[in-house]
């Protein structure tokens, strides 16, 4: 028999009551009906308030975290798909042609620059 079972078995144990002193103590039997209703409403309001503010408690909300993570993944996926600017097929082909021509011109320009340096063999004519 473990401790939990022991508690269950002694469920009828007489409730311990704190000692009372002073005029503030009212017995349950003496509470008015109105007071009872007010007390009940305040409990309901307190429960509602607790439920309302529960997401901002210090406890990590795993469901919220998972939803945020999924949202981030979706955002990243969309972001990846829109890298670059959409262009027409004809513009793409025109740019490709331009890349090739530029590369060839730049190689020629480099050769020109190199030719101006070093030994000028034409001077030997």
């Amino acid at each position, binding site marked *: 028999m473990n401790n939990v079972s022991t508690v269950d078995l002694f469920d009828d144990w007489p409730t311990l009551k704190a000692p009372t002193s002073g005029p503030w103590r009212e017995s349950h039997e003496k509470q008015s009906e109105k007071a009872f209703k007010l007390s009940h409403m305040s409990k309901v309001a307190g429960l509602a308030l607790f439920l309302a503010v529960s997401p901002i408690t210090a406890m990590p909300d795993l469901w919220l975290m998972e939803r945020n993570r999924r949202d981030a993944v979706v955002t990243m996926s969309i972001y*990846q798909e829109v890298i670059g600017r*959409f262009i027409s*097929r004809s513009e*793409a082909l025109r740019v490709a042609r331009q890349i*090739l021509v530029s*590369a060839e011109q730049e190689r*020629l320009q480099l050769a020109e620059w190199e030719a101006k340096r*070093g*030994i000028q063999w034409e001077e030997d004519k």
Partner: protein
Amino acid sequence: MIYVFPKQTDPIRQGDIFIGLPRIDLSLQKVLLVDEKGERIAKWEALAKECQPLNIIVPVRSVAAIVATQDCDAYRSRDITLCEIREFRDVERKSRNTTAAKSWKNILTQHARINQKWFYLPPSTQLDFSDKMAVDFLVTLRVPREDLENLRSLRRGRLNPIADEHFRERIGEFFRRYPYDEWYALDEQEMLEYEKEYPDAGRFPWQKVANESNSGTTK
């Protein structure tokens, strides 16, 4: 001249000359993406972190090229590297107006004295080289070896043993070069002359010291 013509069944070797291989040119500023959504243009900087393969449009030109990969690798590696062959006048611009044989002699034999970025290939009707040509070591192509073996019909010739030995050493020397500031050993007067042509050349500490000490002696 300096060429031999191997049988089509011969294996690919360094110095083999192909006519009609694809040279691809890329721009990292203008990457042309293509997928099912259409074509887009982007900078590679924005794509660099992309782990998935991308499909892009690249321009390609059919060019002449010579095998740079050494024989062992040309026999078994997945890819073969070649260098583009272009007209000599476009590779070595000092010769753009050269006509005299003496000037050509000086230009074409300078390899023995200076490390050039090209390798000379004389004209050849069998290779369809109607003018002087040059291997441009700066422009490389990479093609799959097996594909190239299946395209040996495009191989028009090969360097003969003398030229092949020279080519092997030249390409080795080219890629063995290291960058250095050529003015580092010039004295004060030489440096002044150098700076007239290259004003951006920054002096080394010992050249500044020489300058100051020279200034001191002239006082």
